[in-house]
């Protein structure tokens, strides 16, 4: 390598990974000066490019992933109720960031609680049943053709929860709300009952997804689980004990 080639190279690849260039550098004092100047320029460029990262950016991104809410940076935090929800969700988010996707199972209840209790709490107050066609369409949009539609659904919406497409519903039992979320693309390893954050819950693998129910008590969970097995798998498979 000659001096001209070397000068061209340090203008385009200043890290000098080419062994021939390194050999030339060691043997040429004039190019050593040129290389030192190039390194000084490189350091100035690197410092200038490293603009300050807004404080809390990573937390806001995590929160948006958790709730699926594309809120505009600080705007959303001006409102007290969102700040409260955010604080609750952030506790989950901090833990969630280190969880690999393959081991999402144990975190799913937390994600659902953060979504149902934080992001869409008002939905729990609804009591009037929604049309069965709304439920049917919500599942169809998620690629699932329901065999039947359970009765008593007072809310249905397609929501992302922790990055997973879900259908979020509310099914009151004895006038008390039960949040019901069918998570697609993730099948829990087995049926699990859980208690946390003042909620009782159950996650149930059904077909290729997972049904998660949360309520003040477990009343109605058996019935809801059975109805959704029938709705998603068909009553014949449910009767045959398919999980």
């Amino acid at each position, binding site marked *: 390598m000659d001096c001209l080639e070397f000068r*061209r190279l340090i*203008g*385009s*690849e200043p890290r000098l*990974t080419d062994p021939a260039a390194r050999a030339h550098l060691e043997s040429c004092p004039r190019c050593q000066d040129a290389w030192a100047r*190039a390194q000084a*320029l*490189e350091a*100035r*460029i*690197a*410092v*200038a*490019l*490293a*603009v*300050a*990262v*807004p404080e809390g*950016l*990573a937390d*806001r*991104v*995590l929160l*948006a*992933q958790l709730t*699926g809410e*594309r809120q*505009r*940076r600080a705007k959303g935090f001006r409102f007290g109720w969102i700040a409260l929800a955010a604080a609750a969700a952030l506790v989950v988010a901090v833990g969630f*960031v280190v969880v690999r*996707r393959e081991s999402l199972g144990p975190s799913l209840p937390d994600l659902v609680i953060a979504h149902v209790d934080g992001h869409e709490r008002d939905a729990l107050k609804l009591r009037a049943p929604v049309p069965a066609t709304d439920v049917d369409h919500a599942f169809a949009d998620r690629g699932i053709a329901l065999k039947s539609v359970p009765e008593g659904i007072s809310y249905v919406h397609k929501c*992302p929860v*922790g*990055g997973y*497409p879900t259908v979020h519903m509310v099914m009151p039992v004895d006038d008390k709300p039960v949040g019901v979320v069918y998570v697609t693309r993730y099948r829990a390893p087995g049926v699990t009952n859980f208690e946390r954050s003042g909620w009782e819950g159950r996650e149930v693998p059904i077909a290729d997804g997972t049904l998660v129910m949360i309520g003040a008590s477990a009343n109605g969970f058996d019935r809801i689980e059975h109805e959704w097995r029938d709705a998603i798998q068909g009553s014949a498979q449910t009767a045959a004990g398919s999980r």
Partner: protein
Amino acid sequence: MRAHSGELYRYAYWLSGDSALAQDLVQETFLRAWRSLDGLRETVAAKAWLTTILRREHARLYERKPMPTTDLADLDLTDTGPTPERQGEDAVMRAAIAKLDPKYREPLVLQVLGGFSCEEIAKELGLTEAAVMTQVFRARQKLKSMLDGEEREAVIHGLP
């Protein structure tokens, strides 16, 4: 995620020239990345994968909503350097980088901030490696030229 968010923000900032838009871009990038995590085959490739998503999101935003301004001369040049002299140098350099044509600035940012090789940048930008080497070479030449001009002007006006 935390490991990449700062780097992605800086890349988005130099791509868009706007802090607010850069934050939106980072948020959208991670949302999309999370939904298509299956597309990531190797953890070591995460940075390049996220960079690709961010570039596509930037292109999508441009198509959907043209930016109010693309004049990067209006960039926030707030100084954060350790000394006034150093702050001034950094501000001058940032202004010079902001004035570069995007076709020179983007590969330079990918190389210096992202640590990508010319070959990797070529793949990312859909160019030949030789074209990328030429662009980053010219980017540095233009920066040197602009900085020489700034420094001469400072001497003329008796500035430090």
